[in-house]
Each structure stands twice: as C-alpha cells, then as structure tokens.
C-alpha cells in the first residue's frame, strides 16, 4: 500500500516545498520507494528545490490528461536511488487538476510499488490545495511560529477533516502531524515569536518536529539540493529527526532552546 502524505499549510512561504523535498529525500534514504508530486500547477517550484528543473519533459497535468504516461513523467532524483519527482505544469493553472485524474495518478503509483507518495500542496485553500489533500492518509501541517500562519494551518486542518476522501467516506481520519519551521529560539526567548508549545497548544495536533530558522535553507534551495543533504547543518539534523519520528522512532526535540541567555533576560524576558 502506498501511503499518501500531504505537506500543507494554508499560508505561503512557510516551507512546504523545502519540507516536501527533505521529507521525501529522507524517506528515500531510509530505503523506501518514494515519489514526490508538485501540486502547485502554474507556480512550479519543487523541481528547482530538487535540482531537476532541466530534466522536466512531461508533468503532472500531461499525465492527468493522458498525454504522457507516468513512467515518462517521473524524474529520477540525482541523489537517491529510490526517489522520483513528478513536477507540476508551469503553463497551466489549477483548474487543470481533476479529482479523477489525481486519483488515477496515485493508483498508478501504487501499482508501481511506491511506499510513500508525498504531495507538495500549493498555498491557499482553493482547488490545488484541496486536490493535494483529497487522497491523503497522513498530513504534515507546516506552520511558522506566528499567528497568521497558525490560523491558516488551523483552517487547513478543518478542510482536511471535511474534504479529504477519508473524511467523506467516514473512514479513519487523516493522521495529522504538526511541523513548526523557521523557528528562532532567540526570538522566542525575547518574546517576539510564539514558542512551539504555544503553536501546538493552539492547533492541538501532535508535534513531529521543529526546524530552526537558518541561512542554510536558502543556500540549499539555490543549489537545488534538499536541505536534509547538507553537512553539519541544524536544519538537516532536524529533518532527520522528523523522519525518525515519522517512522515511530523516539527522538528528543533539538534546536529549540536559546544557548546564550543572559541572566537579566532570564529574569525579565517574557516566556
């Protein structure tokens, strides 16, 4: 059974695509045959983050429309043996996605013996985002420690509960995970940012990890290498932890405390 995981958030720019790239890579590195699909039709990005933009010939919409078969459209990752990328179309828009088409693609991936299918959702709550989550078995909701992002995540959790196939058919609900990204322990310490505990309390979803804010992410994007591949990077280590927790291994949270708190700040700083 291919397990379908949607990476979603509601809000844009919180790190969905970065997370999709790292999670799919992480699972593939663990030996699982993994596909990652870019649902952001019209604003294709995943191929850049994965560094395969020059190899895109066919895309998701071609497959949905039957203009190409899945074998032709899937791009093999340059780093991992088990990872395949299905890019979005840049010239079409989200209306080109149909529920039947997406279902067909997912069914076919299952026949090809994929273990995991990662769906990289576009921002928003419109067609693209809904299509990305419709067939999900699990959802990783990416949220920044900031009120508007948290509210949008809350909204998308509601949509998961109402529009996913599992919800519509009254099956066991989509398993939800919360991933807090762009986390800056220093700013939390200074009371400028919500703590991951605040975010979790607001959303009431089990926490799967906290990814620290880091310049490494930008560097990785520019290189077209998923952040999880970076050497000696907190971000890479944090994503490794997320993969471990996803596979039910016990890992303590890292990178959530600020290391050099002044005594005065401890006495007077908010949280």
């Amino acid at each position, binding site marked *: 059974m291919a397990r379908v995981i949607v990476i979603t958030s509601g809000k844009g720019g919180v790190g969905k695509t970065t997370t999709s790239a790292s999670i799919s890579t992480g699972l593939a590195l663990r030996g699982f045959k993994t596909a990652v699909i870019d649902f952001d039709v019209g604003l294709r990005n995943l191929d850049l983050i994965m560094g395969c933009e020059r190899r895109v010939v066919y895309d998701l919409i071609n497959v949905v429309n039957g203009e190409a078969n899945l074998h032709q459209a899937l791009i093999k990752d340059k780093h991992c043996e088990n990872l395949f990328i299905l890019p979005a179309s840049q010239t079409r828009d989200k209306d080109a996605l149909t529920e039947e088409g997406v279902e067909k693609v997912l069914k076919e991936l299952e026949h090809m013996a994929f273990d995991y299918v990662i769906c990289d959702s576009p921002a928003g*709550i419109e067609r693209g985002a809904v299509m990305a989550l419709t067939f999900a078995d699990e959802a990783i909701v990416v949220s920044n420690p900031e009120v508007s992002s948290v*509210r*949008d995540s*809350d*909204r998308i*959790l*509601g*949509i998961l*509960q*109402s529009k996913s196939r599992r919800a519509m058919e009254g099956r066991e*609900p989509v398993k939800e995970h919360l991933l807090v990204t762009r986390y800056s322990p220093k700013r939390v310490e200074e009371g400028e940012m919500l703590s991951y505990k605040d975010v979790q309390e*607001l*959303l*009431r979803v089990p926490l799967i990890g906290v990814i620290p804010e880091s310049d490494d992410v930008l560097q990785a994007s520019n290189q077209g290498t998923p952040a999880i591949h970076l050497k000696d990077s907190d971000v890479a280590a944090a994503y490794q932890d997320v993969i471990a927790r996803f596979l039910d291994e016990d890992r303590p949270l890292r990178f959530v405390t600020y290391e050099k708190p002044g005594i005065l700040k401890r006495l007077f700083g908010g949280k």
Partner: protein
Amino acid sequence: MADAPLQGKLIEFKGASLAVMTAHVRDTEAVRLADALHMMLGGMPDFFAGEPTVLDFAQLANIPERVDWTAILSLLRRYQVQPIGVRNLPETLHDGARRAGLALLGAEGLSAEQRVIAPPPAPAPVVETPPAAAPAPASSEAVNIVAPTLIVDRPLRSGQQVYAKGGDLVLLAGMSPGSEVIADGSIHCYGHLRGRALAGARGDTSARIFSTNFGPELVSIAGVYRTFERGIPQAVAGRGAQVKLTGSDNLHTLEITPLQND
C-alpha cells in the same frame, strides 16, 4: 412479489405536524431584501440548509400594488431558504402568491395543518379558530424530540461551522479562532472557546453559553451579541465562564460571569 399488497397504495396521505421556520418579511422589494440578507448572512449562503419556511407579512410596512414573487423566491433559495407558503398576506396579493406556487396559510399559524391532523375532517365551522397558542407549543415539542444534543468530539477549526438545530451543542475539544458555533439551545464548550458562539439562535432568551476556557471573538444569545474589541474581561479571560441574558423584554443585556470550579 411484494407488489400485489401494495398495489392500492402507491400514494398515501397522512396528517403530520412539522416544525417550520417563520420569516417575518417587512418589505417586498427584492433588492432591499437582498441587501438585508447580505448584511445578515454575508459569507454564509448555505446558512439555512433548505429549511422549509413560512413567509409572514403581518409586519409589512406598506402594501405594494404587486410583488415580484419570482425575484423574492429566487433570492431566498439562494440562501437555501425553502419558502412553502405565506400568511398574513394582504388580500390583494393572494393571486400572485398562489401563482408563484406558495400556499396561503391562515392567520393563525399553521391552522390549515391543524385541521389535517384531526382525523375526522371538521365540518363547516372551521372558522371558529382553534386556540391561537396551540400550534406553537406543539411544534416546539416536536423539535425537542427530534433534535437531541449535538456533540462534537474533535477540535473545531478556523472556518468550520456547526449548527445544533433545535437543541444544545456540546464541544468536547474546544474551538479555534475563526470558527463559528450556533445552537438553538445552549452551548457547552469544554476547552478553548475562541471563535463566534451564538446560542438561542431562534430567540430562546434562556439559552446560555458555558466554557472552561473563555476567550471568544463574539458571543450572542437570542440575537443580543457582544464583541471584545478591548479584550476579554480579566475576571473571565482564559477561565471558566458563562454567558447569559438578563433583564426583560427590550432591555436585555449579556452578563458574563466566572464559573465556580472549585
């Protein structure tokens, strides 16, 4: 096989009493009604979920020459209101309403139906009007029986909406900012009360709102509402609290008091 015994009964008529909503319509100009509905229901076009509704014209400000029933009906249907009939409509407008497919109901509520319920069809002196109060309690009783308490186990998310029709609503996992709960009875929230909570939606002034962690965007009981622009009062913020309506008739005020949890 089962066809034979049913042969004679492809259609069967039985008396039934059902609770319907009444809409007091004070203007017949579709444009003005559309504005009013938009103001009232703005972002919730499916608020009424196809509820059967009687249009009551008793409080009509002035009697127009003619009424554009097509426009009014399509406007109401857009909000999922399902008009089934009219009452207290000025005599001159009866023809139009009948042509628009609306039933003309007697002044005394659904007295027409009252007659259906009584098995032996009453002879001529029907006009002797049954006691005016009779239909109302009967229908509210019916509501209580068919609409038990609605219980929501999962957290209510931003953008989600729940309506406990005819009864109480119990939230076991709280509600987030941007969500909305509506109950014809009371609202009991175990956990965070953060969005909009409207109790007594059909005018029950004895409805209340309870929460173990008070912090809503808006509370309303029987249409009397309050927002919290200046923040939630210290005494109740984040704590157990209840909201009830005090005062009488035209001087209702919302009272928010801490719950004694010890």
